[in-house]
């Protein structure tokens, strides 16, 4: 067992302990499911827990942490992302930290609509104070992948919604 397997097992054990008061809600696939997926245990456990937490609408720090883990397993799951936003608002969390969270998700795979939509939501909430961070973030991604569609869309949105045009021509000159 290598380090990451050990971490995974430890994480699973921690989650089971943390959520021992909640009855997980299993997935009801019906009698003849089509294209069943060979889910791994961690995935099944996490999503069964998420279903229960979502159904109960628990908006707590541990629920927030659960959405982080669910997103790591399934970054395209818009239901989880949406519930995360509900929790962030309910707990009035400092959204600067949320920029770091989206950064870490993007390190895994940055070509994900839900991720960019979430980033846009955070930036919109933070307003003009996030402008330079967003321009820096997209600049970094574009330096690794000059044709990153989501990054360009986000950058265009930032400029149009939050401003920051002053250096844009210079940036284009640098790229050209």
């Amino acid at each position, binding site marked *: 067992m290598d380090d990451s397997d050990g971490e995974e097992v430890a994480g699973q054990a921690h989650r089971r302990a943390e959520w021992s008061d909640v009855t997980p809600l299993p997935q009801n696939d019906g009698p*003849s499911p089509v*294209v069943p997926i060979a889910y791994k245990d961690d995935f099944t456990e996490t999503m069964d827990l998420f279903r229960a937490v*979502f159904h109960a609408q628990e908006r707590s720090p541990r629920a927030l942490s659960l959405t982080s883990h669910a997103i790591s397993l*399934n970054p395209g*799951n818009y239901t989880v992302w949406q519930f995360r936003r509900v929790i962030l608002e309910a707990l009035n969390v400092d959204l600067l930290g949320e920029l770091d969270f989206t950064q870490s998700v993007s390190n895994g795979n940055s070509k994900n609509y839900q991720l960019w*939509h979430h980033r846009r939501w955070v930036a919109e909430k933070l307003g003009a104070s996030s402008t330079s961070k967003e321009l820096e973030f997209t600049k970094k991604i574009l330096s690794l992948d000059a044709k990153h*569609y989501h990054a360009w*869309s986000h950058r265009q949105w930032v400029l149009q919604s939050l401003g920051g045009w002053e250096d844009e021509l210079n940036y284009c000159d640098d790229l050209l």
Partner: protein
Amino acid sequence: MDSETDPLDSSPSPPPPPSPAFFERDRHVMFLQMMYQLLPYQYQTQEINRLTLAYFVISGLHLLQSLHSIDKDAVADWVLSFQARPRVKGEINNGQFYGFHGSRTSQFPPDDNGILVHNGSHLASTYCALAILKIIGYDFANIDSESILTSMRNLQQPDGRFIGTFDCMDSSVHCTPDPCHGLLNDLSAAICSMLESWSGMDREKAKEYISNCQSYDGGFGLTPGSESHGGATYCAVASLRLMGFVEDDLLSKNESSSIINVQLLLDWSLQRQAADGGFQGRPNKDSDTCYAFWIGAVLRILGGDKFIEDKSLRGFLLTCQSEFGGFSKFPGQLPDLYHSYYGYTAFSLLDEPGLNPLCAELGIAIATAGI
């Protein structure tokens, strides 16, 4: 000169194994049948779109004329179990969208009063659900089309674009999880087309939004002002065709369009066929299997597919054909369902024997399912 780093001194990599010279239909059928039975755990990350995965498998088998192997009644029951239903008829005007969920992950049971408090149904999964039902020959008279069509209008924005879903319990939390409006406009047009009613959308507004998405180079972006992209271009052209704003086979009839710049579009699309024979999604990107469909279908709709270099396209696609069945994104990689499906549609456009002919604007086979 340091020979360890000098590329001229490094020994050449071994040549890739020779690609099969033909489309291996039987292997593809087996691949799809295996996927139908069980998807490997790696598909966990696409769990939210399980209905789309089912669509790739079932429509794929249909294209390969091998639908006999599936249990159509079981499929119909499973697909219909994803439909979001209002408790009473009057509720369809409550602002929600009553379509189909993409998986159990976004689907929650109604509360104790039978109210669907959380409704995560989505335009994309609605398209997949209806396409699957059409393919297996399900009687659409048994589908609650009215709820779908009436509530769909809630997803269309004032500027004509569609959002995919509401998926929120707190109406003060504005949510639009999908910025890919170009795709969503196409899905809504396809849904109306399959349900044979345009009451689900304002076609004029949608047309206006789409025409604003054509870029200076002739291709279409996902939103106005964004870069031309193969997938977005398909969605734009297919929606306009479905909504009746673009004539079939414009180029052969030597006609033009008042809505789109056809000549520039044709140029842009043909330039996407690269030196290796494959199609790229944008300039300076590698050729990718799926664009043989996204761009190939645009050219088919316009009547410009005669300008495609078929032989070299086939050659490229066959380097993406897997020995396990299915197609990969790039040559020599492992296959995945998405690229496999679009590989099959591309071969159908190339008139490969043993494949059903394709309806380019819907992306599924014509006629056999009564379309």
